[in-house]
């Protein structure tokens, strides 16, 4: 009875917490909307005031609208014959939206703020985490746990307080994308997933905005300008989304911090060129960056496709069906990078990390197989585990058999399988069952749950 009461009580508390969190989120959304409105109103007033004061004394006397402060601040760009006053003045009149304040967005935002883009918007719903800092250089330790947009906006303001900075502390969705993107001249796609890339490209086609698209993973990066001056859109190039298994994420495959940094800088550069009407943007071409071999290759890509569903001759894309379109379903992958949680096994083939702790404490004879790739295993592993990467599992069966024999003569010894998050371990157990190790069980939630539920000092990555 008593324990039942405890369960009820915790369920009640959880419900109350959830409802409070929900209303907190609603209130925060309303606050940020109002803040954005206020900023808009204030900046309009500011611009009006500036326009009238420019007429009376400042800009007009030099004939280009740059104030003495601006001339001094941007002097090194004004000195460039191919950029000069005209380029700077175009830049100051332009507005750029950066979607994603992560590895690509960080340097892009810093350079765009510094170089004097008139209005700089940023969209992100995420918070800063410690494992972001190696590449998301706009954020500092003090902002861990806080909104990425807040952090990025503060950094941009500290570099250049004279430009207008607009915070969109929300995820870009089909419901808000048209409204947000329509306020800007140029869009930078600095997101990290396939559905966002299709959604942003479609949105830019609908609104006629040039799109500077960058991507980075591991030690490679890619860059292109889409929907610019009759050039192709993202869908012209990739009409069909790739299979989910081909969409790797930085959180799984890793990324060297400076690689998205390089691509993000190039994104800022292309956006500056488009905004200032200087140079030859990377449209109809694609830049491929291979950091490991220090190779940059610029290739010619197809032009706008007449068959394209977004920008072709008979497009199926309209503003109405854009708002209805399910990009997650289209690409078979989620917009926000929540880690995959498979459920391939029945409960009796699985144990929790706490139950495994009991197995260890009781000293039950068992073999623990860690099926992560060996470079993961080298980061951290549980004591007395043997590393057999999933890909080699079938070839390494004899080793598992002999390990089993060495504990308790193989009699009644358990076989437990662990991985990082508990997906590969299920695949491995399925395979082991097929190969005759019927007692194999996986540890639910992998090493992450071990760190969360059993040993708080166990490192996560």
């Amino acid at each position, binding site marked *: 009875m008593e324990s039942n009461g405890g369960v009820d009580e915790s369920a009640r508390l959880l419900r109350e917490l959830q409802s409070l969190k929900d209303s907190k989120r609603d209130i925060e959304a309303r606050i940020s909307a109002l803040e954005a409105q206020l900023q808009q109103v204030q900046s309009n007033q500011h611009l009006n005031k500036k326009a009238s004061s420019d007429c009376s004394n400042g800009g007009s006397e030099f004939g280009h609208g740059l104030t003495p402060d601006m001339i001094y601040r941007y002097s090194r760009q004004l000195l460039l014959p191919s950029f000069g006053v005209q380029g700077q003045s175009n830049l100051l009149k332009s507005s750029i939206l950066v979607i994603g304040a992560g590895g690509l967005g960080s340097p892009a935002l810093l350079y765009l703020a510094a170089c004097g883009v008139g209005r700089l918007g940023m969209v992100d719903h995420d918070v800063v985490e410690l494992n972001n800092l190696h590449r998301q250089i706009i954020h500092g330790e003090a902002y861990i746990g806080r909104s990425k947009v807040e952090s990025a906006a503060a950094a941009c303001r500290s570099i250049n307080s004279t430009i207008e900075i607009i915070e969109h502390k929300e995820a870009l969705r089909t419901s808000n994308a048209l409204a947000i993107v329509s306020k800007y001249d140029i869009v930078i796609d600095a997101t990290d997933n396939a559905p966002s890339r299709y959604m942003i490209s479609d949105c830019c086609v609908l609104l006629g905005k040039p799109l500077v698209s960058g991507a980075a993973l591991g030690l490679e990066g890619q860059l292109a300008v889409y929907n610019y001056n009759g050039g192709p859109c993202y869908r012209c190039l*990739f009409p069909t989304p*790739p299979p989910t298994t081909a969409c790797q994420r930085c959180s799984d495959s890793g990324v060297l911090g400076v690689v998205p940094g390089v691509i993000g800088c190039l994104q800022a550069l292309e956006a500056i060129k488009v905004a200032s009407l200087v140079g030859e943007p990377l449209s109809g071409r694609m830049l491929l960056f291979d950091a490991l071999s220090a190779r940059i290759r610029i290739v010619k890509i197809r032009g706008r496709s007449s068959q394209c569903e977004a920008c072709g001759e008979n497009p199926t894309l309209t503003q109405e069906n854009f708002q209805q379109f399910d990009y997650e379903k289209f690409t078979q992958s989620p917009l926000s990078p929540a880690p995959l949680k498979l459920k391939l096994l029945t409960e009796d083939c699985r144990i929790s990390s706490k139950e495994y702790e009991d197995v260890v404490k009781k000293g039950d004879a068992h073999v623990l197989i860690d099926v992560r790739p060996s470079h993961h295993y080298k980061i951290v592993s549980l004591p007395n585990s043997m590393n057999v990467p999933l890909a080699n599992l079938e070839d390494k069966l004899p080793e598992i058999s002999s390990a089993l024999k060495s504990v308790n003569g193989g009699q009644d010894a358990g076989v437990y399988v662990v991985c990082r998050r508990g997906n590969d371990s299920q695949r491995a157990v399925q395979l082991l069952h097929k190969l005759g190790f019927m007692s194999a069980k996986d540890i639910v939630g992998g090493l992450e749950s071990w760190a969360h539920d059993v040993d708080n000092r166990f490192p996560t990555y």
Partner: protein
Amino acid sequence: MKRTRRQYYTAAVERLFYWGIKRHFYAFLLSDLSAIAAKAAKQKENRTKFQLHERVFVKITKMQLTLEFGGGLELLCDSVKIHSVDVDLPAEEKKLTMKHLLAWVRSNLIKERPEMFMKGDTVRPGVLVLVNDCDWELSGQLDTTLENKDVVVFISTLHGG
């Protein structure tokens, strides 16, 4: 290696050719213009024949290509990004097309998960194919004819950031 040899041959022929002109300049002092023109034309013809001969020779045996894999596709071929390969021409064919090459790559270079490289007889969605730094969409996709020493790049589109 081969390229150097070809360059050497071309340079040698060119040297011979210009040396010939120089000789003809002196000959011009002694003889008439039409004879010189005829001789020069013959030499030029020889030069073309020589080059043509070399090209035909390479074509009928096999095609030397550089294949590059990127954006994660290299993981399907032992994590090797650049492959210098000799591809035999398909029997009864005078040319090598991308369609043949894809089949060849699939059976000779791809070591695992071929479905991550191909779908049907073409590459899977999300893979860009570049022939000499140019989207194969511009050269006829599967029908693109390859030449000796062409560079073909297969690159998977990235989404990370």
